[in-house]
Structures are given as structure tokens and as C-alpha cells.
């Protein structure tokens, strides 16, 4: 493994994909090294379960390797991989919640403005009041509270930094559906995080 690490890091993903198609496992292992952190994070966020997330990571890369011939290069390799991982993660989620169907395309309910309740200014740099570890826990826990339809869109758009179009393609949703879910996700998270990040000593009424 040490030898392959020194051979491949400079190559772009596209070249590593070409080599993987020819059966080069070292090239594919370099793709794993580049993307596994983000795929594991995505799987953790969607499934909310460590064991499931690790399964999703493994199955996604094995699946991608097995079907690498189907990747035609119309998108980035990473986007294609995300699509596979999202599908695997949603399958896990559906299995865990067999009593409740997990559907991404059900219509959003209620008025958007009802999601805005807390009006409080935040600390200028909220992250400076917490350790990295505390911050991670606060942010992860907040995502956990969202319904799958919101958290999946939020994770792809704002955590993994996919475009609206890429997110829509990965989730088989329309662009307006991605947009409305993203707005709701952001507003719900804003609401949750306000409990932690509001400026100390502030009085809500000062801003009314």
C-alpha cells in the first residue's frame, strides 16, 4: 500500500477512474482515500447511526468499484459517488424505520414563516465559545432533529457543498423541491442553534 500512496496522489480523479476501469485497485484505493471522510460524514448524517454509516461507506465504495464502467464522466466522480452513498444511506434508514416510510418527495407542509420563532442576535463568532468537539456535537445533534427530507437536502447542499442541480439529480427531486426543502432546513437549524449561539445578556425585546 505504501508504494501506491506515492504513485497516485498527484493524479486527477478522472485519471484514477480510467485506471480503476482497467481493474487497477491501487488507483481506486486512492479515490477511497480522497473521498472516504466525506462519504462517511454524509452517511452518519443521513442514517444517524454509526454502524449503518460504516456499512454505507463500505457498500458505496464496493458498489462504485463494481459498477465503475457505468460511470460515464458526465459529472464529477465525487458527485456520482454521493449519489450511490445517498441511496445506500436511505435504504438503511428505511430499514431502521420500517414502521414509518421515509420519502423524500412528499410535499412540504405548513407555512415557511411559522418556522421563524426565535429572533435573537448571535455571538459574532459563536464557534469561539466552544471546543471543536462541543461544536461538532451541537451541529450534528441539530441535524439529527430534522426530518430526513430536510436533513438530506441540507447535508448535500450545505455540508457537502453540492450545487442545487447536483442535489436535485442525486435525490431525484425537482430544483424547486430542493430549494424549498433547503430553506426549511436552514430555518429549522437556525432555530435550534439560536439556543446555543445567542448573544449573552441580550433581551429579545430590544429587537422588536
Amino acid at each position, binding site marked *: *500500500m505504501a508504494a501506491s500512496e506515492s504513485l497516485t496522489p498527484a493524479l486527477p480523479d478522472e485519471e484514477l477512474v480510467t485506471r480503476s476501469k482497467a*481493474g*487497477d*485497485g491501487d488507483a*481506486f*484505493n486512492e479515490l*477511497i*482515500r480522497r473521498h*472516504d*471522510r*466525506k462519504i*462517511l*460524514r454524509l452517511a452518519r448524517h443521513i442514517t444517524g447511526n454509526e454502524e449503518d454509516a*460504516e456499512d454505507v*461507506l*463500505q457498500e458505496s*465504495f*464496493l458498489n462504485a*468499484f*463494481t459498477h465503475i464502467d457505468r460511470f460515464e464522466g458526465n459529472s464529477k466522480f465525487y458527485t456520482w459517488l454521493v449519489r450511490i452513498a445517498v441511496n445506500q444511506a436511505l435504504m438503511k434508514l428505511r430499514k431502521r424505520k420500517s414502521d414509518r416510510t421515509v420519502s423524500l418527495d412528499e410535499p412540504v407542509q405548513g407555512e*415557511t*414563516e411559522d418556522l*421563524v420563532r426565535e*429572533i*435573537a*442576535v*448571535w455571538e459574532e463568532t*459563536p*464557534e469561539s465559545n466552544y471546543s471543536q468537539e462541543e*461544536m*461538532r456535537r451541537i*451541529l450534528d445533534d441539530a441535524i439529527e432533529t430534522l426530518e430526513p427530507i430536510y436533513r438530506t437536502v*441540507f447535508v448535500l447542499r*450545505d*455540508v457537502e*457543498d453540492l450545487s442545487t442541480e447536483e442535489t436535485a439529480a442525486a435525490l431525484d427531486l425537482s430544483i424547486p423541491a430542493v*430549494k424549498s426543502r*433547503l*430553506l426549511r432546513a*436552514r*430555518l429549522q*437549524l*437556525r432555530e435550534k*442553534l*439560536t439556543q446555543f*449561539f445567542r448573544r449573552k445578556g441580550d433581551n429579545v425585546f430590544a*429587537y*422588536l
Partner: protein
Amino acid sequence: MLTCKDFLGWLNDYLDQTADAETRQQVQEHITNCPNCWVVYNTTKKTVEVYKGMEAQPVPETLRKKLTELIQARCGKKG
């Protein structure tokens, strides 16, 4: 003039810089004059920023090793 409801409808496009110039201008005017909507704008912006600022944690070495070996096995090579 935008209402607070209109503002909310444009919030994401404004934050993601996908709103056209005229809309951007209207949103800007609205949040300058409406303190509540300014707070919503500012805290939503920070919400997105704190998430974007988080690095993904490394994959446990045992997990990565297992995966690498599975790939090697599929190639018919030794791991």
C-alpha cells in the same frame, strides 16, 4: 417594498448569491429597515457558515484498511 414574507422567500437566493440585481437590492433595503428580518438573515447566514466550516473527521484506520483489502480482493490481488 418587500414584505417580511417576501423576504423569507428570497432569503436563500440572497444568501447563495443567486438572486438577480433588482431582488438583491430589494432584500438589502428590507433588511436595513426591518430589524427582525435582519436577525433572521444574519443568523441563517451564520448557520450555513458554521456547517461549512466543519471538517470531516478521518475514517477509522481499521475501517479504511478493511475496505482497501476488499477492493484488492476484487482485483484478484493480495491485500
